[in-house]
């Protein structure tokens, strides 16, 4: 019996050793690694905690929807026709610069990701760009909208690609809308001549994002010699929740409209406090990041008549193929997470597709090669309307170009919320811009 036990143990040890050798042999017999047999690691930098967690969670979940779709379709199609699977790894920037630095460093050095996607706050994203430059990892920024992301010259930004409109772009676009649509409507309401200067007030976050909008508006007015007079330019601290005093100052300047450079958690209270507490019954124009479901919920009936510059909305889309693609994305996302994706989620969804396409085109994860693939990239638009229906990056600052639109909100009493209708440009619009009956134009007196 004793010998039998010893024999069994020896046999087990021998079997284990043989198995180990077999495995070792199998491992060493593997052919040299090709991309088609590995996993492509995509790092997603998003604010999962902290003040921007609402948007950040949306970005991370949208990236997952994209990766799942790509993998379900067989994976990334490589140059030689073979396939590779995507693996997402998230880095939480904690909505802070230090958190962003930590997340980027971990993804690059510990997780050894092949490419990065994400980034929301411009202040946070710009804080860890030095790390991106140092390790030369291709990074598709899908949320931070300050142009400094790729325009800055103090560090090498050549590995950074900007897949969201910058404050320069939409600040200019919104200002042109004011000049071409809002100004004539106000003049018509007042019965004044077309040369009456339009009285515009700015209320913006005291950050790169808010100041970027301020600069864009000022530059657009000067460059195009627009008949718009900036009657008030007020700033506020990021994350502020009580805007009544600044709004009192804005109201004292008698504006025809107010352009807000604010995040959704600021934009909704600004408009609510302005209309409810201050009696500032004017048109509020908002940056595109406000076009999300939480904003519509928070603003309630006070959003009536407000305008949002947009490229993706939870509640509307320009007619055509993009609308169908957006609806599919929204439904897939809703089925999985029970909510609808927002704009930053949409561009992050596309960011994963762009990453997959660039790596697929080269058939390698070599970072310099992937970077060049992004420079040379020309791929069909995914879910957002792009210029020429193509996603590509400009040769100077590596920025993609979106087709933007302006939408105006109207109150739906059944829902208890406002819903948007596209009012500009003419080729996309679904309804006309109107001045609400309660609207009060500014006066110089």
């Amino acid at each position, binding site marked *: 019996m004793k010998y039998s036990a010893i024999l069994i143990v020896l046999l087990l040890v021998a079997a284990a050793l043989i198995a180990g050798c077999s495995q070792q042999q199998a491992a060493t017999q593997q052919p040299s690694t090709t991309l088609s047999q590995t996993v492509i690691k995509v790092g997603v930098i998003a604010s999962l*905690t*902290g*003040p921007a*967690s*609402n948007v950040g*969670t949306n970005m991370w979940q949208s990236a997952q929807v994209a990766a799942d779709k790509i993998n379900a379709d067989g994976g990334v199609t490589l140059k030689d026709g073979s396939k590779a699977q995507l693996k997402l790894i998230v880095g939480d920037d904690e909505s802070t610069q230090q958190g962003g630095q930590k997340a980027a460093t971990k993804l690059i050095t510990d997780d050894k990701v092949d490419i990065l996607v994400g980034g929301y706050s411009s202040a946070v994203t710009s804080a860890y760009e030095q790390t991106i430059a140092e390790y030369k990892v291709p990074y598709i920024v899908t949320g931070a909208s300050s142009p400094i992301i790729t325009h800055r010259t103090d560090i090498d930004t050549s590995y950074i690609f900007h897949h969201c409109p910058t404050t320069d772009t939409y600040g200019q676009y919104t200002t042109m809308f004011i000049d071409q649509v809002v100004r004539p409507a106000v003049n018509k309401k007042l019965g004044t001549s077309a040369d009456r200067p339009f009285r515009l007030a700015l209320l913006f976050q*005291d950050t790169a994002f808010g100041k970027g909008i301020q600069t864009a508006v000022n530059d657009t007015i000067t460059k195009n010699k627009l008949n718009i007079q900036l009657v008030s330019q*007020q*700033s*506020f*601290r990021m*994350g*502020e*929740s*009580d*805007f*009544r*005093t*600044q709004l*009192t*100052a804005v*109201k*004292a300047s008698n504006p025809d409209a107010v352009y807000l450079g604010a995040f*959704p*958690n600021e934009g*909704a*209270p600004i408009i*609510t*406090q302005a209309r*409810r*507490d*201050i*009696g500032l019954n004017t048109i509020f124009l908002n940056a595109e990041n406000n076009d999300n479901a*939480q904003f519509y919920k*928070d603003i*309630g009936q006070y959003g009536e008549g407000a305008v949002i510059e947009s490229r993706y909305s939870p509640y509307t889309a320009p007619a055509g193929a993009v609308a169908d693609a957006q609806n599919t994305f929204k439904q897939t996302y809703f089925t999985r997470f029970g909510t609808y994706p927002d704009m930053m989620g949409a561009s992050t969804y596309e960011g994963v597709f762009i990453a997959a396409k660039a790596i697929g085109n080269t058939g390698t994860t070599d970072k310099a090669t992937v970077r060049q693939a992004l420079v040379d990239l020309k791929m069909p638009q995914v879910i957002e309307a792009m210029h020429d229906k193509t996603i590509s990056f400009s040769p100077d600052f590596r920025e993609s170009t979106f087709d933007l639109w302006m939408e105006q909100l109207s109150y739906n009493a059944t829902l208890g919320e406002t819903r948007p209708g596209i009012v500009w440009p003419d080729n996309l619009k679904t309804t006309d811009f109107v001045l609400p009956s309660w609207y009060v134009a500014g006066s110089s007196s």
Partner: protein
Amino acid sequence: MDNLGIFLQIIFWGLYAGCIYILLATGLNLIFGVMKIVNFAHGEFLMIGAYITATLFFLTGINPYLIIVLSMLVLIGIGAVVERLCFRPILGTGKLNEIFLSIGLIYIFQNGAAMIWGDSWQSVKSPYDGITVPVGSLFVPLDYILIMVFTAVILCGLYLFLTKTKIGMQMRATSQNRKGAMLVGINVERIDVISFGLGCSLAAAAGTLWIVSGQVFNPYMGSIPAIKAFAIIILGGLGSIPGAIIGGLLMGLAENGAAFLLGGIWKDAISFIILIIVLVVRPTGLFGEKGE
């Protein structure tokens, strides 16, 4: 709007902001006065109070001005537990321990709230949303009048509690001389628990009034108000409740005046500029006594 109207409106917004600060700072001062502890996590009790009121409001639809009482009672309980489990063991072991403990509590409460309620911004619509009341030449929202009335009522109640009840008098005695209070037979540990709970309940009232005014809130909302509350109690004088009231009002008025005259980015800075001036000119604060 004429210049007088604008001036009055800024004063009004300052008074409203001052009400929130007064409640927060008075609670903090009550705790400091009795226990002499520095609790940087006081803003988190404001946040918890806000969430409790909001949750009950969302679930039941009961008027949030009525829920304020319940929210204050819950925070008395939470405050008592925190005092008993966290602060009492380290009482008298040095300010550094208190500071690190309270910083730890900030993270625990913030992350706990984020786990329970999520960390996206939320807002509450008051039942009186959109109703305005004529006050002189101004039309001001009814909610702000109610906020000022509630603050006054709570402060009057606190005054009566401290001056007319036995426990209130024991709290004042402990605040004035802890050893003396022990010698005359006051159970100072019991007074510590009550003071801490009461201070937290005032923070809960501030949190409730914060949200009914239409301001958005999330788990991280308490940090800045807590810092300002500290500035207020230093400004008014450590341990002085009248100082906290005057300091809170001054802070609210100064912030809103600066935001109007100098711009929104000066809103926070002005409070600390005033604080530095007061500390240089009168280091004990406006109503403080030497030795605090």
